[in-house]
């Protein structure tokens, strides 16, 4: 087990390097640079600027330098924002994105599992239909429609919640709409998956055996059904996290949250090389790490999976 974990952890490094390499060369090979959009600047100034950021070195040397710097957790200076380096902006944005992401995934898991299990136990009840309808909405309607509509209803019309902003000025109520929006798709998938798997498990032999031995229904659900129904949900967590990550970019845009997603989109617009690279590396690292954790949890839950 330990061996497996260490091997998987080491396996993350090449993937991360591939991501860095692809995005580095895609960005550098493309025409135009961070200084080409601005007002006409003279050739000498441009040369000085390029020399300052080492853009005049051979591409391979730039790549090697960059890789070494990343290994030292230094993502370099921003080309557009002159005051701080990329590390600073990521340090400022990441916690906000992580907070809404974690709350959304956590909430989606808890409520999705709850809704799925109750739907399965009370199949074809009003409750079942209600939660499955919400789930269908979560799957079919894109985030950037759900978000503005929720905002229009609860912030503009009913005025219960703030329209857009962050905790520092608005208090915790600023979190509600972004988190609910972001939680919609994973909630929908978790609810449907857990409903399907609970229905299947309820028909299985071992549940019948447990019932025949006289175990009460709540006990059966708690001891036998719950664990089994977690498996498909956990294996869905990987894609769910990836979806939440890209979703957070949109949600931050809609609700004007100064998180990592805003920096990512802005830097993509103004070709801030180092900032794009920095955000991509951080996003990828989070994604890979989360997938790794999901794999490990899956192994603990399902004894049929061996790690050899």
């Amino acid at each position, binding site marked *: 087990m330990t061996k497996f974990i260490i091997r998987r952890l080491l396996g993350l490094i090449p*993937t991360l390097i*591939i*991501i860095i390499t*692809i*995005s580095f060369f*895609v*960005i550098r090979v*493309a025409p135009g640079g961070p200084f080409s959009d601005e007002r006409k600047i003279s050739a000498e100034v441009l040369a000085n600027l390029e020399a300052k950021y080492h853009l005049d070195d051979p591409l391979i040397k730039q790549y090697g330098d960059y890789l070494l710097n990343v290994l030292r957790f230094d993502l370099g200076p921003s080309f557009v924002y002159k005051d701080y380096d990329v590390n600073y902006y990521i340090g400022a944005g990441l916690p906000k994105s992580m907070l809404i992401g974690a709350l959304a995934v956590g909430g989606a898991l808890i409520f999705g599992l709850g809704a799925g299990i109750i739907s399965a136990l009370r199949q074809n009840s009003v409750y079942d239909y209600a939660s499955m309808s919400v789930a*269908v909405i979560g*799957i*079919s*309607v*894109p*985030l*950037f*429609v759900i978000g*503005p*509509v929720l*905002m*229009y209803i609860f912030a*503009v019309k009913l005025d219960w919640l703030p329209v857009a902003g962050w905790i520092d000025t608005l208090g915790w109520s600023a979190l509600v709409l972004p988190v609910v929006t972001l939680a919609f798709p994973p909630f929908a998938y978790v609810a449907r998956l857990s409903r399907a798997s609970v229905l299947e498990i309820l028909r299985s032999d071992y549940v019948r055996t447990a019932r025949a031995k006289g175990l009460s229904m709540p006990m059966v659900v708690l001891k036998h059904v719950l664990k089994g129904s977690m498996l498909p949900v956990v294996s869905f967590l990987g894609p769910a996290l*990836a979806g939440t*990550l*890209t979703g957070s*970019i*949109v949600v931050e*845009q*809609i609700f004007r949250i100064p998180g990592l997603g805003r920096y*990512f*989109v802005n830097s*993509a*617009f103004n*070709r801030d090389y180092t900032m*794009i690279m920095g955000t*991509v590396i951080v*996003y*990828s690292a989070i*994604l*890979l790490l989360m*997938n790794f954790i999901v794999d490990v949890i899956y192994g603990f839950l399902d004894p049929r999976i061996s790690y050899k």
Partner: protein
Amino acid sequence: MAEKIIVEQKPDSTGKLSTGLAADVGNLREAQKGVSLWQDAWRRLKKNKMAMLGMVVVGLYAVISLSAPILPLHSYKYQVLEHQFLAPSLTKNAGELLVEQEIGRYRQQNEAFGVEGLTEQQEADLVDFRDRMATETKVIDSEEVLLHERRYLLGTDNLGRDMLSRIIYGGQVSIMIGLIGTLVSVFLGTAIGAISGYVGGRLDNFLMRVVDILYGLPYMLLVIIFMAILGRSIANLFFALAIVSWLTVARVVRGQIMSLKESEFVEAARSAGASPFRVIFRHLVPNTAGVIVVYTTLRIPSFIMLEAFLSFLGLGVQAPLASWGSLVGDGVDAMIPYPWLLFEPAIVMTIFLFSMNFLGDGLRDALDVQSKNKM
């Protein structure tokens, strides 16, 4: 299979009670005729009301966006700046709406000064205004039209462009991207998956390693980088979406091919001297068509969502072209005073995605061999 057909056989139309034996013989003959996979699937699909409804809606969308050029629509990019932010109206034309706005503005002014009704000066201005609304003409598309007679069933946007035509032409772009993107990814994925599965060995190992690695990449981020760096044109959008989306098809098709390649009909084809290319694309791939069709229908809505996601961020199609995503994105900025700008494209898009998903689910149930026995 045969059992099912017998059950569904209708009673003899002659009305005579045929003997059990004769009925059995009739049934047998019927069963021998057999039902192809597609007929069977079609029958099952017809029973699924939601899927059929989805199919009708999707068909309707397709017809409308294909016939957009011959529909009596205003140009999707022609701007009448005076017609900014007109509310949707089925009965009134632009001039009438503008007069109403004008009266409202006068009333508001007068209220501030505590004046009841309209002053004489304002009434006179209104007469002039009405007159101008009724007579002003402009040459649009080399045709002289009464400018304020224009009707906007779904209102206008911030530049006075007709929302109805923007939504229809935007739908054209969205659906086209969904279709072409899906076709490209299915084509690529099928070819790579089929070759990888059939040839096996080192080539298979190599290709699947590549797929695994690409799977691990946060591809949405890479697409955003592509769009930001290569420029925001539709061609680049296709390119960026297509290169990241063939992976799942490749995996699924490979699995199917691997399970089929040892079967007798492949051996027969091979012993008859068919080339590997022919075996793969004439014998094996058609046998995976069900999976491919299901994947395609389920993939189209997600492609449309991807495109809309990029356009929403401003990285997709560029003005004056529109897509559902860019319309929703524009609508969000203006939704507080002008909510229709958000809700119209959002509803149109949502209905399409819903229908597409229902149709896809229905097709999966109809074609999926494993769920056949459950139904």
